[in-house]
Structure formats: structure tokens, C-alpha cells
């Protein structure tokens, strides 16, 4: 035993304990800030965190969560917070918090310094709904094409065709080669047929049967046998010809169906030309997407982002057999072992929230059971938040994260009614006036998810509206002018957005009362110009491809006729020889009948008395 060593260990442990007491606050604070920042995608700052090892509590004076979309703003800022940790679960590596109170929450507050972080610092998790969010963004960006903002829609068809590299031309050439090769094979096959030789043999055989020389029964028998052989040869050749006919018809059908694909290729080229020209379809639905799409999609995407994170986190806990990962060296993979009767690894039983929104709405609410594995507590995570202000605005938010069963489910209901729209921006679109002077609004949204199925609805209703028509710094284009003049007479704006389906098949629809109004005003002007450009491109694509297409059709029909004629010729030859054989057979039968009647007469005479 080394006594000096023992003393060293005792001193070392004491020093660690002492340092822990001194530095644990800043250590935990920076750890929590780093984890929060990485999850949030922008800085999370905690002020003056205090941790008591003896009393097991954590408290802080202020928490700021930066809005990742506007990094000089906090999405949420809190006042003082405090919570107690249970001691015994800590020994089992579990964090259980009975009650956690966050007071003085404020939303959308200003930051003193930028809360942006680099991409490397962001937590990267494969989003379950990434494809859905991407699809929605694509739907909106397809409509908001840069060219739409300008009505000078004179598509430069020459340069488009030059850049386009019409794929159908090379595809048609390939098909033409393929078809020619196939016809060459057929030509060779048909030329190798010995039908003409067979026909000549048959003809010689038929001619060799001399009816006048049939005198005896043996001669008759030999002639009949010859005719039978001729029939056999004709039948065999005919069957061979029929088989070839069938096979050729099948090949021709295949080739014809390949030729019909040419239309699809040309259509693809046309669509690519349109997309290069950036010419959108203008209809009522697209107008809604143009004006409200971006905002709606951002809202849905951020909901889906939170849900993806929640699901990704709980997925580790729910998997019966975790997938083998490839962690960095010496890091390994932590395996979770589920025990229904054990306490969860992480559990905040009650999280009480209270505070104010930027519109001075007093908020209060409760999030219950923020837990690592819901199955261990037999309950799901619920969120209830409500608030109001003295001007009659009310807000409620209810949410449910249900991970008790195999299929994860989430449900959100959000209602914000009676709020003032003064200075409110109902759309980020440049086509709507920047702000509203006065009006009241209602937003109601619902989102329900089960597995990868999404069903959501966002409705907005703005009443007694007066738009701020002061001109922006830049010059308005023609569309913006038309929209702004139409909005002068509008006092109500409603829109409803619906999204439904899975990432593979998603329906996304936005309708609003502005659709018809604006469609009538701008649709005819815009469509007339865009339709002309579309027609130009269509005409040009068709003219570029028509020569190749015509060549292809010509080759197909020429070769087809050639082969068919060849086969018909053989068919006719065979038919002629068959007729001859029939005639010969009839002659033989006639002779037979004659000889038979002669013989019968002789027999009768012989027996006459």
C-alpha cells in the first residue's frame, strides 16, 4: 500500500469536488448553451446559471433562443427559471425534473449581438419530413419564378433551343437505328426462306402427275400418295409462313409502340424549353401560391422541422433492435435498454410557462411529460398554451406528441383571433403592399401527422382592412401596379391552405378571395403574353424535331410495307399451288369414280342370267 498515493487520491478527489463546485456553473452553462445552439440552429444564451451540487437545483437569470431566420431577434426570451433535480435517478444516469417553471417569456425580442452560427455547428439530423418540406418549397418556387415579376415576356426562342439540346432528336435517331436493325434482321430472315423453292418443287410434283397414264390401281394409289405429299408440303410451308407473319406482326406492334413514345419525348423537350424560358402557368391557384405560398410553406416546414427532431430523438428509444451505426473511432454507439417498469432517462413532468407576446398578449401554459420514452410513463407529451390581451385578442395552442404506439402521431391546433393587423405583414410577397394600416385578423391552423402521413390546414381571415399604399423605394412593375390598384377596393382577405398526403404523393392547395379578383385583373394580360411565348417555343420545338420524326415514320412505314409485301407474295404463290393441287386431286377422284362405275357395270354384267 502506498500511503502517499492514498493521500494523493484523497487530495485529488477533494480538489475535483472543489473545482466542481467552483466551475460547475460555467461548465454546465456552456454545455447547455452548446447543445441548445446546435439543436436550434442559432445561438442559445443562458445568463448566470447556478447549479447546486448539494441541493441539486439549477437556475438562471435569462435564456435567449435566437430566431434562426432573423438572427438579430430572439424567438423566445425568458426571465428567471429554476428547477430541482431528483438525486437518486442521477446515480442511474437519469434526469428527472418534477416541475420546471419558466416565467416572463417574451417572443420576438431584440438581441444585442448576432445569434447566427456556422453550418458546421448546426445539429444535422435526417429530417423525416425533409422530402415533404422540399416538395412544398418547390411548389412555391415554381410559381415565383423571376420572370413572373417582369411582363416583358419575349422568350428568346433561338437561344433557348441552342441551350436546350433537344433530347428527342438523339432518341429518335437511336430508335431509327434500332428499327432499321430490326428490319434488316427480318429482311435477312425472309430472304433465307426457301418458300419459292418449295413452291417450285410442289409445281413440278403436280405437273409430274399425268392423269391420262393412270390405268391400274397401283398407278392410282401412287398418284393419291403424291397428292397427299404435295398437301403436306403446302401445309408445312403455310404453317411456317403463318408463324413468321405472327412474329413479324408482334415485332411491328412493338416498334409501333416505341414510335408512340416519340410524342412523350417531344413533350419532355417542350417542358424543358418552357422551364428554361421560366414561363409559369397563371391560374387562380397559382396566384394564391404566389402571394401566400412562401409564408405558409415556411410555417409548415418549421412545424415539420420540430416534429422531425422530436421523432429522431425518440426513435433511438423506440427501436427494438437499434441499427448498427458507424461512429467515430473510440466513440462507440450507446444502446438503450427498455424496461417498462424503470424510470425514463429524461423526464420533465411539468413545464409551466408564462409570459407576454410582442403584441402584449399575456400567455400561460403547461407542457407535460417531456420524456425520453413515453412507454415508461404510459402517457404522451401535451402542450397547452393560451393567452389574451385587453383589446380582445385571444390565442390558444394545443399540441400532442404521441409516441406510445408503433406509429408516431402529432397533433397541433393553433388559433389566434381578434388581433390587430395594423403594421402586420400578411405575406412576404413583393406583390402585396408592405404593410396593413388597420384591420383585425384570425388565424386558425391544424396539423395532424401519423407516420409519414401529413394533413394540415391554415386559414387566415383579415377584416376591415386598409392597406398601406405608400410606394416602396423601387419602381413597381406592371403586375405590382395592377395588384395594388385592385387591393385599394378590398377590405377583406381570406385564404386557406391545405396540405395532405405523404412525401410520395402530396396535395398542396391554397385558395383565397384574392384569386378571382386578381385573376380577372392580371390573368388575361399576363396569360396572353405568356401563351404567345409558349406557342413560339412549341412551334420551334416541333419544327426542329419534325424532320427527324417524319424520317422515322417514313422508314417505319416503308420497311413495314416491304416486308409485308414479300410475305404476301409467298402467301399468294402457295395459294396458287394449293389450287393446282386441289384441281389435280379432283381429276384423280373423277378418274377413280369413272373406273369404279366401269368396274361395277362389268360385275353386274358378269352376274346377269
Amino acid at each position, binding site marked *: 500500500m502506498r500511503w502517499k498515493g492514498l493521500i494523493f487520491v484523497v487530495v485529488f478527489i477533494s480538489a475535483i469536488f472543489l473545482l466542481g463546485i467552483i466551475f460547475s456553473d460555467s461548465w454546465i452553462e456552456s454545455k447547455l448553451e452548446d447543445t441548445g445552439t446546435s439543436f436550434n440552429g442559432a445561438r442559445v444564451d443562458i445568463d448566470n446559471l447556478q447549479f447546486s451540487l448539494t441541493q441539486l437545483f439549477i437556475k438562471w437569470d435569462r435564456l435567449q433562443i435566437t430566431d434562426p431566420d432573423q438572427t438579430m431577434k430572439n424567438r423566445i426570451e425568458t426571465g428567471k427559471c429554476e428547477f430541482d433535480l431528483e438525486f437518486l435517478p442521477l446515480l442511474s444516469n437519469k434526469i428527472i425534473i418534477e416541475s420546471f417553471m419558466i416565467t416572463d417569456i417574451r417572443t420576438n425580442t431584440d438581441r444585442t449581438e448576432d445569434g447566427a452560427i456556422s453550418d458546421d455547428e448546426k445539429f444535422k439530423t435526417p429530417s423525416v419530413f425533409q422530402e415533404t418540406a422540399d416538395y412544398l418549397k418547390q411548389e412555391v418556387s415554381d410559381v415565383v419564378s423571376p420572370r413572373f415579376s417582369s411582363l416583358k415576356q419575349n422568350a428568346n426562342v433561338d437561344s433557348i433551343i441552342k441551350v436546350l439540346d433537344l433530347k428527342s432528336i438523339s432518341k429518335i435517331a437511336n430508335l431509327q437505328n434500332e428499327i432499321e436493325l430490326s428490319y434488316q434482321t427480318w429482311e435477312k430472315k425472309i430472304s433465307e426462306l426457301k418458300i419459292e423453292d418449295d413452291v417450285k418443287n410442289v409445281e413440278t410434283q403436280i405437273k409430274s402427275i399425268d392423269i391420262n397414264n393412270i390405268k391400274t390401281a397401283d398407278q392410282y394409289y401412287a398418284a393419291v400418295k403424291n397428292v397427299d405429299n404435295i398437301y403436306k408440303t403446302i401445309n408445312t410451308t403455310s404453317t411456317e409462313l403463318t408463324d413468321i407473319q405472327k412474329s413479324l406482326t408482334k415485332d411491328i406492334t412493338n416498334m409501333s409502340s416505341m414510335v408512340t413514345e416519340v410524342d412523350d419525348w417531344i413533350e419532355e423537350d417542350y417542358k424543358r424549353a418552357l422551364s428554361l424560358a421560366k414561363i409559369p402557368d397563371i391560374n387562380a391557384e397559382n396566384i394564391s401560391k404566389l402571394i401566400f405560398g412562401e409564408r405558409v410553406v415556411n410555417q409548415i416546414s418549421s412545424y415539420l422541422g420540430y416534429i422531425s427532431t422530436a421523432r429522431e430523438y425518440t426513435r433511438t428509444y423506440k427501436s427494438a433492435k437499434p441499427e448498427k451505426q458507424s461512429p467515430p473511432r*473510440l466513440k*462507440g454507439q450507446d444502446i438503450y435498454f427498455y424496461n417498462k417498469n424503470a424510470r425514463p432517462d429524461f423526464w420533465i413532468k411539468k413545464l409551466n410557462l408564462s409570459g407576454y407576446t410582442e403584441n402584449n398578449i399575456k400567455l400561460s401554459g403547461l407542457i407535460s411529460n417531456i420524456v425520453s420514452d413515453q412507454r415508461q410513463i404510459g402517457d404522451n407529451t401535451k402542450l397547452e398554451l393560451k393567452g389574451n390581451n385587453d383589446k380582445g385578442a385571444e390565442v390558444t395552442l394545443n399540441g400532442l406528441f404521441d409516441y406510445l404506439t408503433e406509429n408516431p402521431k402529432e397533433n397541433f391546433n393553433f388559433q389566434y383571433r381578434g388581433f390587430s393587423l395594423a403594421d402586420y405583414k400578411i405575406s412576404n410577397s413583393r406583390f402585396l403592399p408592405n404593410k396593413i394600416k388597420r384591420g383585425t385578423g384570425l388565424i386558425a391552423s391544424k396539423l395532424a401527422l401519423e407516420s409519414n402521413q401529413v394533413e394540415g390546414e391554415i386559414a387566415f381571415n383579415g377584416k376591415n382592412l386598409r392597406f398601406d399604399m405608400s410606394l416602396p423605394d423601387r419602381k413597381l412593375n406592371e403586375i405590382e401596379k395592377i395588384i395594388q390598384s385592385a387591393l385599394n377596393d378590398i377590405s377583406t382577405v381570406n385564404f386557406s391552405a391545405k396540405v395532405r398526403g405523404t412525401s410520395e404523393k402530396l396535395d398542396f392547395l391554397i385558395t383565397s378571395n384574392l384569386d378571382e379578383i386578381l385573376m380577372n385583373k392580371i390573368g388575361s394580360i399576363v396569360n396572353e403574353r405568356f401563351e404567345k411565348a409558349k406557342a413560339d417555343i412549341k412551334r420551334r420545338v416541333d419544327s426542329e424535331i419534325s424532320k427527324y420524326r417524319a424520317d422515322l415514320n417514313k422508314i417505319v412505314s416503308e420497311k413495314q410495307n416491304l416486308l409485308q409485301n414479300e410475305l404476301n407474295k409467298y402467301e399468294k404463290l402457295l395459294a396458287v399451288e394449293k389450287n393446282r393441287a386441289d384441281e389435280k386431286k379432283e381429276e384423280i377422284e373423277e378418274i377413280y369414280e369413272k373406273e369404279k362405275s366401269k368396274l361395277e357395270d362389268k360385275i353386274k354384267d358378269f352376274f346377269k342370267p
Partner: protein
Amino acid sequence: MFGIELLAKLIKILRSAASPHQIAAGFVIGMIIGLTPFWTLHNMILIFILIIVNINIGTAIFSFLLFSAIAYLIDPLFHSLGYFLLVDMEGLKDFWTFLYNLPLVALSRYNNTVVIGSLLIALILSLPTYFLAKIGVIYYRENIDSRIQKWKLIQAIKGSKIYSFYEKIRNIGD
């Protein structure tokens, strides 16, 4: 240069006053700490044992450095073995689940594939390594040491002033 220093250190340890048992035990403890991820409960306990009990610390450090490098190289093997033990072996699942919720044991990070995989290999190797190391030390002292001392390199080192200084100070603090 590092290789020569390491060799010199090893020779120094082998020629020290420590018993073969102390050297072998130090070597095994260093091996376990080196093969398994450092910040684990069992390593902390082993370090305290190393400090408190009369085991050769120099050998442990040498062995720790050696096996840390080996551990880095064969880490994927540890991960696969750990995954096999923790996930694929259905029969052990109840046992692991029991440990997962057991106070203090849960802090040992045994549920990490590399920790459990490397620990198992280290434990399997510890007994044979101990006996091999012990036999090796005895064999060295009896058969090899006298020959090595005759090497010109060793003579040169021993003749240097630095070595004389080391000889003077090496027993201070024992």
C-alpha cells in the same frame, strides 16, 4: 527517437527494483486503461488502485501508451463485438436491461459498444498478459539484461553526465 526513448524506458523499468509481479500488474492495468475509452468508471477505479496499491506505475504508463495505439487501430472490432454483445445476443438482453437501471453501474457506460467490447477483450487478455509479462520480466533479468548492458549504446548513455545526474536523483521521493 521516440522509439529509442520508449525502449530505454522499458529497459529501465525492467531493471528497476520493482518485483516481476508489480511490473506485470502495472502492465495489465495499463493495458485495460489503454484498450478501453479513458473516461469510464472502471478506468477511474483502476487509476486509484494503481496509485494506492504498490504496482509499478511506469509500466502502466508504458502499457497504456502502447495499447491506446492498438485500441485506435482495432476500434471497429471493439464496436462490432460490443454491438454483438449488447444487441445481437438476445439471451443477455435482460441482464443488460437490469444493469441499465442499476444505480452507479449505469454510470459505467457499459451500454456503449466500444466500452463493453474493449473491456471484454481487455479482461480476457488480462490473466495471460499478467503471467506472460511476469515470466518475461524474470527471463529478461536472468538472461538478457547482462548482454544488453554490454551494448555500446548503453555504455555511452551510462557514461554521460545526464545519466550520472539521473542516478543521483532517481531514488529521491521513494
